[in-house]
């Protein structure tokens, strides 16, 4: 049996669930960011799969390009915040960062 649209959607669903699990359970802020990357990648797979199975309309590719660009922005800003947190707390455990002001 050939590879159809549902194969790609199921693949991206599994990737999405794994990313959600990483976001919920990880304590290290960088590992939470990696979970977010998994979720964004699964969204991209969906965009491109629907683009191909809609006669290769290019709009899905454009959306995926913007998602990749936003992922780059998000990682840059989030790592800046993480470095700032590390300077203040000497760790990046997201469960223990609960001060609004010291």
């Amino acid at each position, binding site marked *: 049996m050939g*590879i159809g649209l*549902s*194969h790609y*959607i*199921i*693949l991206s*669903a*599994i*990737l*999405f*669930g*794994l*990313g*959600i*699990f*990483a976001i*919920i*359970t*990880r*304590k*290290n802020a*960088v*590992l939470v*960011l*990696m*979970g977010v*990357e*998994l979720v964004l*990648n699964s969204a*991209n*797979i969906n965009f*491109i*799969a629907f*683009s*191909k*199975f809609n*006669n*290769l309309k*290019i709009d899905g*590719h*454009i959306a*995926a*390009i*913007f998602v*990749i*660009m936003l*992922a*780059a922005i998000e*990682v*840059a*800003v989030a*790592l*800046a915040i993480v*470095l*700032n947190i*590390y*300077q203040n707390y*000497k*760790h990046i455990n997201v*469960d223990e960062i609960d001060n609004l002001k010291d």
Partner: protein
Amino acid sequence: MITEIVFWFFAILTIGSACVVVFSRNMIYAVFSLLFTFFGVAGIYVLLNADFLAVTQIMIYIGGILVLLIFGIMITSNITGVDIKSGQTGKIQIFFAGIFSLIVIVGLIFIALTTKWYSAVPSAEVYSTIELIGKSLLTNYLLAFESASVLLLIAIIGAALIARRK
């Protein structure tokens, strides 16, 4: 036939290394298996006739984002290798999180299998998508493209401002 073999290879590579990313206790293992996840997703893009996006994925994700993440892990872990504080949450929280993400996965798969998708596969003639993407970015999506570049500039300035040592 060869398409199916390649699809299953990349799918298993992606899911397996994503499992290592999610479940590994060692942060270095997790971040390096993220590389294989991104690479597998790039292979999936190639299968979906998205050549430009596969190259973009490798250049931006592996060349930029992954290097930034490794940089962040290296600079913020007190002890080389395994960080004591990278331990996971308690057993009950992991249990409920696992139940929740399983529900999400099963629900999405159920929706994907029960919906009748409109499916029109393009003709067998394979052409490059770069020309289409370029034309589309500079005509229909010109405003979004330009504002995205402004957003990128603002974000870089903001990141440098936040990360600056006081």
